[in-house]
């Protein structure tokens, strides 16, 4: 690899004219990008194609033969009550976690950047959960959610509101997991919004002031909010794709229960694929999971396009 690269100097300086230089540049590019391209196909794009192909077969892990069954796995999936419950749980989780993480993150970013004191401390405090090992923290939350000893019920009882065994109650379990998800997601959305706020040109505020928009609310409505559009779309997309990937907390805290109330797509895929070894059926679940993630991105891209057309 080094030989090719070493052959380049001198020639490259004249590359605009020299044909040999252009050819050497192309060769160097392929050599430099080659390992990445190869690994990308083996570890990422190839498997993604393979999972789609596998979802149309009847293969179970370790079987010597493989048969094409077309949409058989999907038919089985759509006829399965558990799948619909799983899908509903996943969507409820996403619908609960995404708006709250995004708006708490936005509020935190605005408030932190609105003043100068303790900025570093607040940023670090809100971001710390992002860097923590979710799995270890899940066990802390399990303790905090403990029906009688847990800090959460103690606080709620202190305020005088009704308490329950949040993780064992089928009506609340998915929301209890959602609280952990929000706790972890807020920091990332905050940091991304801070980045978005920094990208707002100062002149716009001055221009708005000239136009008579002086107060904080007016400034926010007329400058900050519209300028945050791209950041907002980005944050929503990232948070939503990550929410669709919820797995750790389910796996260690509820095991999909009680009564399948926290069975989510990825957990279902894990169980079918790696506990029951039904590889093809799990592949079909993976395709559905990927479909949702791609759908979110597609919507984001469309919205972004519309924004640039009108903006």
């Amino acid at each position, binding site marked *: 690899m080094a030989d090719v690269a070493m052959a380049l100097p001198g020639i490259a300086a004249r590359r605009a004219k020299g044909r040999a230089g252009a050819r050497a540049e192309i060769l160097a590019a392929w050599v430099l990008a080659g390992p990445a391209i190869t690994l990308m196909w083996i570890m990422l794009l190839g498997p993604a194609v393979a999972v789609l192909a596998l979802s149309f077969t009847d293969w179970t892990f370790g079987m010597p033969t493989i048969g094409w069954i077309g949409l058989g796995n999907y038919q089985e999936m759509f006829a399965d009550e558990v799948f619909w419950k799983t899908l509903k749980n996943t969507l409820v989780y996403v619908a609960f976690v995404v708006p709250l993480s995004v708006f708490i993150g936005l509020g935190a970013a605005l408030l932190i950047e609105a003043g100068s004191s303790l900025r570093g401390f607040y940023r670090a405090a809100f971001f710390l959960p992002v860097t923590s090992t979710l799995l270890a923290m899940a066990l802390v939350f399990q303790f905090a959610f403990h029906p009688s000893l847990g800090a959460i019920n103690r606080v709620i009882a202190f305020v005088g509101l009704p308490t329950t065994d949040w993780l064992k109650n089928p009506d609340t379990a998915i929301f209890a997991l959602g609280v952990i998800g929000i706790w972890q997601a807020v920091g990332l959305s905050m940091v991304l919004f801070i980045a978005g706020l920094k990208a707002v040109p100062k002149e716009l505020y001055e221009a708005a002031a000239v136009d008579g928009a002086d107060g904080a609310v007016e400034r926010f409505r007329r400058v900050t909010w519209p300028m945050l559009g791209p950041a907002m779309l980005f944050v929503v997309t990232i948070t939503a794709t990550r929410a669709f*990937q919820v797995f750790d907390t389910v796996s260690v805290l509820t095991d999909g229960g009680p009564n399948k109330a926290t069975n989510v797509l990825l957990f279902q895929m894990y169980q079918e694929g790696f506990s029951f070894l039904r590889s093809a059926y799990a592949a079909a679940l993976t395709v559905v999971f990927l479909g949702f993630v791609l759908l979110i991105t597609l919507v984001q891209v469309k919205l972004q396009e519309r924004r640039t057309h009108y903006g």
Partner: protein
Amino acid sequence: MRTKTLEPGRIGFALFRHALLGLGALIMLAPFVLMISVSLKPSGEIFSPEFTLLPKVWHAWENYSAAFTKQPLARFILNGFIVTGSIFVCQLIVALPCAYALAKLRWRGKETVFLMVLLGLLIPHQVTAIPLYILFWKFGLLDSYAAIILPSTISVFGIFLMRQFFLTVPDDLINAARLDGLGEFAIVWRIMMPTAVPAVIAFGVLSLVWNWNEFFWPLIVIQSEHLATPPLGVVFFNNAEAGTNYGPLMAAATAITAPLVIAFLAAQRWFIDGVTMTAVK
């Protein structure tokens, strides 16, 4: 948030800001405080109806020594360093040259490769789990460090991030290096990487955080206890202790969370700046 910007209003807003952010920070930090607090207490105090932040009887030594002796916790943490370190080094070696080729060289296929990178960004890594499991099983690689490390050696996110950064490097710098007789390979490592240090640090911390905390893939490929990464280690610990022994469990959780949290707090300024600088572009 009044529209008036008079002095009393400003003080009022400062109070409002600190009250809300303070409450928020308290909630964000509470789990960490709870974890450390419980890790210092004997079980009698953990299950007592009244909660105190600091233990009446210190049980820190007992809990932490139990955490490190009942399960090979030090081994799990060492595994965490081995795995995350190897992954990051591989990611850099693979991603930087590719990012340079995408940002600064002219070649046919560049657009296609970049499109592949963008496509790769859209695919969550869990999607590849079943085919990769089968692949590693065929090659007899299951239950090994290689099984954890190999899928992460390629980071399309890293390629993307570095490419964006390299685009901002002036071409004159590269041409000057070429005139000095540097090859393309040397340019990547001796010119481009040093200029990209902030992006490399931001990427490094994100890579470290993601891979240290990764649970899904190691859970699938690792069976042997001595290969367990930190999150798997906590689960082994939790299962072995049947979840009732909160003191040692929280000590284990603290020990496994600590390296990253300490690293983050030490690199905080660079890191948050690095992320905010590179994230939205």
